[in-house]
Structure formats: C-alpha cells, structure tokens
C-alpha cells in the first residue's frame, strides 16, 4: 500500500517539471511520517515509455503508469476519473497534485470523491506530530497561513514553482502498467480546440523576466519590453492590469492569480507592486524596479530601483546591452 501518491503528469508524453516538484514535497514528509512514495504517471504518447526513469532518477522507486489517448492537455475529467480509480485501489494516506491548470480543480474534486481532507495552493510541506503541515500564501501574499492536517486521506495541491526539483538520487525502480476503461462520451467536458499564446521563451522557465504593469500605458510599451527581453534572452510577463485590459495575453500574467516565477533576474517596469503581483515574483534572485513613483510598493521588495519614466530608461538600456553583447 503506497502511503504518499504523487500525481505525475505527462500530457504530451514528457514528464512535467511540476511532477518532480511534487516529488520534492513527498520527500519532505515521507521520512518523518514513515511513509513510502509511489507515483502515478498519467499521459499519452511515446514519451511515456521513458518518463518513469525521470521519476526513478529522483528517488521514486514505484511508478504506476497509465497511458491513454484521453490523457492529454486539458482533459481534466479524464484525469480525474483515472486518478480516482487508482486512489480507490491504492488507498494512499496522502495525495500530492500540482496546482497547475488541471490540478487546481482535480485536487478539490478528488478530495470530495475520496472523502479526504484538502489543502490547496501550498508552497511548502513539512511534518510534525504525525500531521502534515502545509504553508500557503493568503490575502494576496500579505500573509502566510500554516495548516496542520491529521485526517487521512488528505489531498494537497502544490503551487507550481514553489519547490525546487529535487537533486537526483537514483533508485532501482519498477513500472506497473495499469489499464483503464474510459468512454469519451461519458466525459462532461471535452477540449475542442487548443489556442496557444507562447512567447519564444517560456515565462515560467525563463532565467530573465521583464514584467510590465499599468505604467506601460498601453500595448505599445510592451514592444519595447519584448526587445529588452529578447536582448537578454528572457521572456515578457505582466501584472494584472495589462492582462485585464487586453494589452497582453492573459497567460502572461504573473502573480498570485497568474504564474509564479523564480528567475535569476526580474525587471519590473511600470509595476506598482500590488501584493498580488509580488506574491508571484518574490522568489526571483534579483528584482530591479523601474517606476516613476518613488513611493511605489514595488521598491520595498526590489533590490535595485530606478525612479524614472520607462521611456527614458528602457531604450538606452537596450542599446547598452546590445553594445556589450556585440549585437
């Protein structure tokens, strides 16, 4: 009987990074609570043949693999059905799910179906006195709540990018293939079309992110940020107002509601620094803020600050970096 069940996903056949972050979360509590770790790997495609090895490499010996054509991106109901079936057979004490697009509702719905306790959007897991102790940001990142869960089973969803991928610690592993019966006609929701809005460099994986805010004044300013980002080999993100206003795609939004990022360098341009936004960027190694308003709250979290209109600073900054890089 597995004690901790990690829900690992590979919708396009490649193991998602967040699955390995969950392994880090599982390792944080497995030892102290005396629990073993099993991963259930769900997805579709030829890559699923190799994906278990990545889990073995990070210390998960037992992998249950489910390869089904319905286990592709966005098919939440298909994932839910399979995870529920696996959980009913395996009867884990703790289930860890990534709080990504699919996982954030899977966790709640699975908990309801299993009669389990539930804590969502966790950024940290630990254990103490037999309880799983989870931390999560609340009030738009203004405070951190500590929750202790003694009830079993318990389902936790982990906010992506909150935990690092664990260092490799290879183990000899086993893979058990499970077959599931699923009729697509039974699923109450189906993805009919996928509309991608990806920048050249994925926002969540970029080592440099240039974020624009309300102070950009409109979509035009983002072209400059795009040039700065490409000069630095980075990606462009945004706080909520530009995303809400349609200046940039919604998927560029960084913050508690949007993506959590942890780049080496984050440059916040024309961003006031609402706690909601700061919650999503506070893991950045270096934060540079450029804002006209010296009182903007972003300066209280930035390491370096420039009080100026971005129009006066960004073009010479692009020129200077190009000069240094010989571009």
């Amino acid at each position, binding site marked *: 009987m597995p004690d901790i069940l990690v829900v690992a996903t590979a919708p396009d056949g490649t193991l998602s990074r967040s699955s390995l972050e969950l392994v880090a979360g599982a390792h944080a509590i497995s030892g102290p609570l005396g629990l073993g770790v099993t991963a259930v790997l769900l997805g579709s495609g030829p890559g699923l043949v190799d994906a278990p090895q990545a889990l073995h490499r990070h210390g998960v010996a037992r992998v249950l693999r489910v390869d089904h054509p319905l286990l592709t991106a*966005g098919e939440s109901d298909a994932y839910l059905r399979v995870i529920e079936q696996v959980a009913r057979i395996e009867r884990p004490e703790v289930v860890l799910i990534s*709080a*990504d*697009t699919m996982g*954030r509702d899977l966790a*709640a*719905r699975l*908990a*309801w*179906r299993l*009669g*389990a*306790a*539930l*804590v*969502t959007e966790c950024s940290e897991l630990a254990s103490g006195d037999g309880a799983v102790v989870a931390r999560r940001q*609340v*009030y738009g990142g*203004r*405070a*951190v*709540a*500590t*929750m*202790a*869960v*003694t*009830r079993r089973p318990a389902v936790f969803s982990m906010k992506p990018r909150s935990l690092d991928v664990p260092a490799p610690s290879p183990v000899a592993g086993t893979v058990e293939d499970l077959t599931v019966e699923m009729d697509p006609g039974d699923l*109450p*929701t189906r993805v*009919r079309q996928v*509309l991608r*809005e*990806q920048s050249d460099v*994925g926002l*969540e994986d970029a080592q440099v992110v240039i974020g624009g805010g309300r102070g950009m004044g409109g979509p035009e300013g983002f072209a400059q940020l795009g040039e700065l980002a490409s000069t630095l080999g980075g990606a462009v993100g945004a706080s909520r107002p530009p*995303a*809400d*206003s*349609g200046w940039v*795609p*919604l*998927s560029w939004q960084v913050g508690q*509601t949007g*993506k959590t990022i942890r780049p*080496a360098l984050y440059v916040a341009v024309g961003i006031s620094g*609402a706690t909601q936004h700061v919650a999503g960027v506070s893991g950045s190694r*270096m934060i540079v803020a450029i804002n006209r308003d010296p009182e903007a709250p972003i*300066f*209280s*979290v930035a*390491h*370096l*600050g*420039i*009080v100026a209109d971005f129009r*006066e600073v960004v073009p*010479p900054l692009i020129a*200077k*970096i190009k000069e240094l890089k010989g571009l």
Partner: protein
Amino acid sequence: MDVVVCLKQVVDPELPIRDFAVDPGTQRQVRDGRPLVISTYDENALEVALQLKDASGAKVKVLTLGPAAAVSEAIRLALAMGADEAIVVDDPRAPELSGAEKARTLAAAIRRIGPTDLILTGCESADWAERVVAPLLAEDLGAACVTFVSRIEAGDGAPLVRRLVEDGHHLVEVRLPAVLSVTSDESNRPRLPKVKDIMAAKRKPVQTWSPGDLTPASAGDVGAGVEVRGVVVPERTSRCEFLTGEPVEQVEALVQRLRDQKLL
C-alpha cells in the same frame, strides 16, 4: 437559462498594507472599519451572467453567504448591475469559514433554489484564494466543472467556453448543468450601474435564509480535519538600492550591477 452567480464579500484587497491585520483569535483578516467589496473575480462572473441575460434572456440570481447586514451593499450593487433576484444565506460565521465549508452551504442553497443550468463563481477569492469553491460545488451538485473561464463562446445547448491555461487557452465543450469559475478578461469587465438601475434594484426580491434552512449533502466535508495553526504577516525589510542620476547614468549603474552579479 437559469444562472446562479455566487458572490463573496471581502475586505477591499487594495487596502494599504498598514491597515492589514490578522485577528489572532479567528486567524482571519480584521474586518472592523475596513471597506468591504465584492471579491474581485466574482464581479467578472456576474458580468458574464449578465451578458448571457442580455443575449438570450437568461434569468440571473445572485447567491451570497452573510452575515446579512454586512452583505446588503454587495447585494444592492449586484441587483443594480442587472441581476434579477438575490438570496442571502445569513451566517454570522461566514467570514471565518473555509472555502470547503462555504461550498457545502452554497451547494445546499443552490439545491433549494431549484434547477439551475449554470453556476458561476469567481476563479478565486481575493482573501484566501483556495480556488476550491467551484470544483467542490460541481461535485456536490453532480455538475460539470470548468475553472478559469475567461468567456463563454457559445451559449446554447452545450456551451463552448474559453479556459485560461498556462500557455494560452482551451476551448472546452461543457455539458449542462455546469459550474464555471470565471477569470478576468477584457470581455467581462464589470458594468457600472446607471442611476435608474440603482433605483430599480430596490424593488427586486431579496430572500434571506439561515443555514438551518438548508440540508448539506451527506458526503464528508473536505474542510474537516484541517486546522489553521497560524496566519503570519512576514516582516519585509526595505533593502532597495536606488540608482540615481540622469537616465543614462542610471542605466550605466544598472548594467554594472548586473554584470557584477553575473546576470549579464
């Protein structure tokens, strides 16, 4: 089409940080004297419902958990925006309930309201942002669920909804009845009520129920067995180094710092 929109009232999330405090007794934000507003994304959910009303004559009810005296302003605003009627579940403990506990009560209230095609919520609350109410409502009510919906593309039959995902959107076909959680989008900016709408709202029906009037589902409460040990405001020390001078000098200094840190 019958639509129920779940609204939550929260302390204004734009409140300056100096006015933010946590009550050590309840482990929740102190509300006394703070301005209360409809939780951010709930207004977007209401706007989506009102657009369905404009387009196809949907009937829109708003549902909220009390305390009734405190939520009256939020209800009036929702009715003035165009909702047809309102139901308040008057529960003085509401501000301290977990998302799971709230979902359980809301589901019981929706069952009492009667057959409903669409239930809309905000994609998260502006306070605890657990993001559990919509999926738990869907389970409790046996309805389909799509979260982070930015717009409804087609409203008749099985609606096609646009769901925000990490790298763009998915168009998802969803069977009714369904629970949708709504995120903000340029297409669903909340409308501002006109003066005549505000006057007309006073004549719209508002029902007040108590939690005792409702029968929650027999399934276990996923909020049980979870203890809030503490809510702490992390100390933030200002450490920002301001780069001064003319823009060109500021840029020079910035580039130097980035090179020192091996970021360039």
